[in-house]
């Protein structure tokens, strides 16, 4: 029961903050509410014993990525006149929501009606760093290596892009 209440609260927070994120006019507001979303998602991870991912989520997303965003916002020194004039923002939001509503509704309906839960019994130490790490370096070693290359490429790309062209 406690878990359910906790889940409900966190879900509500995640949804509300993400709605605020997509509808805020200024990017700084979006970023701040996005942090809230990310943290609540991290908490939801923790709720299902994914402790390692919980930590990763907090550190990488809420920590690194979001601070990068905030840093960029600051760095670019965005003024109000630099922001796009989104006159029809609300209409767009409404219209897109209506469009996507059936999509969500159908998926929810399907999930509600189907019996997807396996209810596996978690072993000791499930979701810990050891568990995930073993898995990562045994079964998933190739994707891991590929991701490292990807990160390298991204690094190089980022440097190249932001270099001023002569």
């Amino acid at each position, binding site marked *: 029961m406690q878990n359910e209440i906790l*889940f409900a609260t966190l*879900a509500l927070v995640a*949804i509300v903050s*993400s709605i605020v*994120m*997509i*509808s*805020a006019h200024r*990017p700084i507001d*979006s*970023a701040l509410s*996005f942090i809230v*979303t*990310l943290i609540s*998602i991290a908490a*939801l991870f923790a709720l*299902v014993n*994914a402790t*390692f*991912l919980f930590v*990763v989520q907090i550190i*990488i*997303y809420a920590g690194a*990525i979001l601070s*990068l*965003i905030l840093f*960029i916002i600051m*760095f670019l020194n*965005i003024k109000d006149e*630099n*922001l*796009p*004039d*989104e006159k029809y923002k609300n209409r*767009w*939001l409404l219209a*897109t929501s209506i469009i*996507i*509503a059936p999509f*969500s509704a159908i998926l929810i309906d399907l*999930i509600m009606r189907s019996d*997807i839960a*396996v209810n*596996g019994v*978690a072993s000791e130490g*499930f*979701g810990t760093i050891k568990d*995930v790490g073993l898995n990562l370096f045994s*079964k*998933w070693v190739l*994707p891991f290596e590929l*991701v490292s290359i990807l*990160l390298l490429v*991204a*690094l190089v*790309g*980022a440097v190249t*892009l*932001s270099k*001023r062209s002569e």
Partner: protein
Amino acid sequence: MLKAYMILSILLFSIGVVGLISRRNIIVIYMSIELLLNAVNLSLIAISADMADSSAQVMSLIIIAIAASEAALFMSLFVVLFRNRASLDANLFDILGNKHA
């Protein structure tokens, strides 16, 4: 519990899509994309917990890594775009269309 997680994931995903399409501010668009990834991560974690298999967690770990690299690229892109156009309006970047042909 799994169903609840899935539904939440779907909702967050939908909100991300709405933001992605509706907003013209590229920073918000970027954040919407991150939200999509997070929604997926959420469902992966939920499934992982349900099946008691940590492979899905590895997947989401990889997704987070990819998101990080993406973030790096996006940030440099923002810098370049803002430097060139002095604006964050996604509508300005439409050289794909036939207007400039």
